[in-house]
């Protein structure tokens, strides 16, 4: 059989390299109002954006770390030691040839241009603070689809951008959304006009190259009435000894009858704090679906959410978290029902390896006055070793009549007998474990686009190889 070649090979070791920095713009270490002005100056922000940033900075400073409910490990982030803006220019190139050589080499090693040719409708590649490359296929652009960086979006398309920016996720939603709002740079702005169904996915690739750095991309996607879009993001960073911060905000808007699918395969190195706020609004008959795969990072806190604002809106979160030794995946979903006959579905699978820890937090909210809303939550945890840990914190408030929720949770462990059985068939211990893990996530992965399921399978194999002594 032809060997299955993943168009999205971003394996852990492939991502673990860094080129010397050649930044011309550097906001220095630490965060003050001066940093904000520096970023606004470089990016030539309109006044309203500068003001938005400054307000957000105040909110960020006034908010405590959420350690009263979240991991104390957050205290290891020293905001004064982080660099908040690094770039070699603010204009992304439209031609791959124009991208600087070292950056080009980085993305070529990660296979990005090859994937663009193969199956993507458009690609944006972000290197530290700014996109270095952004391109949309001509045919897709001609349909009126806008796919640009956030800076270009707010400057060239203010009539759409301003209407939605910060509306799905307000600055003060949490400390890290406030931080992002203060220093955001990069990320995508996408608008799909009414009725346009974008056949192939748009992709963004986020790469951290610099040490002691914080990446704060900001993505806003608006699918106008009856349109359809799949957006995929990939992330890697080299292994540094110091903490790196990735704190993105992603806002999705699916207007009446639109379908928006957002897929993440995150493969951060083990020094990255990944604290991301992701939320979508689904209007009447619209659907927002998050497919979220979290592999790697030191601590991930991410709870993609959907606010179902119109009748018959649908929200879905399918997530897989793999907590390797020493890692903590604190993930989940938020489903806020705000109209009748809305349905939501959460399927979460987590795997904890070694001393890895997976936490599921799920919020489902159906208020009293609504009718015929449904939520289904399934949350399964797999423990590989006796030292592995999993916790589940569901918060479900369902009131009123005619609304239904279903919640199922399970914890299972890969048993020694199971591994022995597979070894007796000739599989190594690592192969046996990765097969078990793949089996555990299989029914979920089958719902992913092919490119991602193949990639995910490979990532799991790599992770398991590393975890067996």
């Amino acid at each position, binding site marked *: *059989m032809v060997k299955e070649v993943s168009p999205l090979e971003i394996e852990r070791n492939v991502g673990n390299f860094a080129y010397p920095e050649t930044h011309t713009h550097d906001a220095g270490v630490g965060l003050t109002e001066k940093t904000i002005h520096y970023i606004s100056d470089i990016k030539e922000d309109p006044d309203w954006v500068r003001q938005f940033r400054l307000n957000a900075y105040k909110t960020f400073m006034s908010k405590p770390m959420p350690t009263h409910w979240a991991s104390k490990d957050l205290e290891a982030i020293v905001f004064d030691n982080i660099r908040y803006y690094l770039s070699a220019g603010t204009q992304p190139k439209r031609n791959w040839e124009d991208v600087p050589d070292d950056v080009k080499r980085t993305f070529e090693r990660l296979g990005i241009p090859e994937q663009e040719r193969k199956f993507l409708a458009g690609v944006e590649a972000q290197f530290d603070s700014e996109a270095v490359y952004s391109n949309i296929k001509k045919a897709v652009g001609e349909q009126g689809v806008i796919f640009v960086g956030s800076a270009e979006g707010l400057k060239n398309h203010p009539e759409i951008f301003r209407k939605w920016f910060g509306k799905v996720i307000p600055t003060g939603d949490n400390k890290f959304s406030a931080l992002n709002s203060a220093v955001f740079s990069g990320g995508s702005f996408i608008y799909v006009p009414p009725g346009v169904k974008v056949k192939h996915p748009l992709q963004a690739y986020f790469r951290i190259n610099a040490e002691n750095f914080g990446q704060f991309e900001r993505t806003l996607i608006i699918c106008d009435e009856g349109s359809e879009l799949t957006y995929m993001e990939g992330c890697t960073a080299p292994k540094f000894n110091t903490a790196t911060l990735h704190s993105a905000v992603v806002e999705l808007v699916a207007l009446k009858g639109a379908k928006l699918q957002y897929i993440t395969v995150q493969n951060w190195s083990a020094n990255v704090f990944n604290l991301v706020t992701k939320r979508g609004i689904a209007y009447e008959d619209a659907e927002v679906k998050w497919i979220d795969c979290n592999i790697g990072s030191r601590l991930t806190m991410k709870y993609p959410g959907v606010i179902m604002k119109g009748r018959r809106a649908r929200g879905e979160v399918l997530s897989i978290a793999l907590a390797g030794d020493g890692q903590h995946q604190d993930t989940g979903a938020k489903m806020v029902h705000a109209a009748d006959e809305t349905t939501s579905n959460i399927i979460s699978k987590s795997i904890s390896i070694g001393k890895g820890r997976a936490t599921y937090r799920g919020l489902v909210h159906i208020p009293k006055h609504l009718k015929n809303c449904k939520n289904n939550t399934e949350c399964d945890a797999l423990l590989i070793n006796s030292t592995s840990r999993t916790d589940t914190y569901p918060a479900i408030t369902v009131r009123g009549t005619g609304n239904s929720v279903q919640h199922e949770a399970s914890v299972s462990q890969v*048993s020694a007998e199971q591994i022995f059985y597979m070894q007796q*068939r000739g599989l190594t211990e690592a192969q046996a474990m990765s*097969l078990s893990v793949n089996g555990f*996530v299989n029914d979920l992965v089958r719902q992913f686009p092919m490119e991602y399921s193949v990639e995910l399978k490979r990532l799991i194999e790599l992770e398991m190889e590393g975890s067996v002594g």
Partner: protein
Amino acid sequence: MNQLSITNLRVSIADQEIIRGLSLAVPKGEIHAIMGPNGSGKSTLAKVLAGHPDYKVTAGEVLMDGEDILALAPDERARKGLFLAFQYPSEIPGVTIANFLRAAVQARLPEGEELEATDYYAKLYEKMDLLEMDRSFTSRSVNEGFSGGEKKRNEILQLAMLEPKYAVLDETDSGLDIDALKVVANGVNSLRGPNLGILLITHYQRLLDYIIPDRVHVMIQGRIVRSGGKELALELEEKGYEGYEAAVKDEVGEPAMA
């Protein structure tokens, strides 16, 4: 040295000795049956041969075609050609039989060599036909929700696909009705040949009506106490193990575990 030979094997689990100086040789091409009462150590022997980590070999050796396998990991033994059909096969949720077997076949190929899917499925379907298995069987998760008979047939299917040099069948007849037993026996008989040695562990003579062994060994309290031809099985069926158990008691005293 075309045989699986066990010499003076002693095995303990949690300081209790279960196999107590067992010697046995299964030449390639032959089927040997081990019969014995419950608790005689038959299943322990099966697991020890396969390398189960819970058991400690305190003395003796096990040679497969002259090579000592006791130091090898379970998967290395398997790839060198040792197969164990489990009495209680594990479930592997979410992993289909087709994918599981494919991974197992792939694991036997030299590094860098990729299994041809068409060849693989052709062979898989051929073996399934042999075992009168429905094609849809391979898309089910390994042993998940299987009946006793389905589990045992799945073991034999794997045996057929992996083509080992030596196979240990641990109580493959248990939990089977007579029709399922015949199907499994037919499967084993069809695999019988000069390139495969089989050690058949069973509690009852019933299976040996369908799979005729070359030799029969009686195992009592961790040792082989008598060996003979296929007629020995019939004798055991008639007289039971009591005579042997009494004799062993006289000879070695109560086992430590009793």
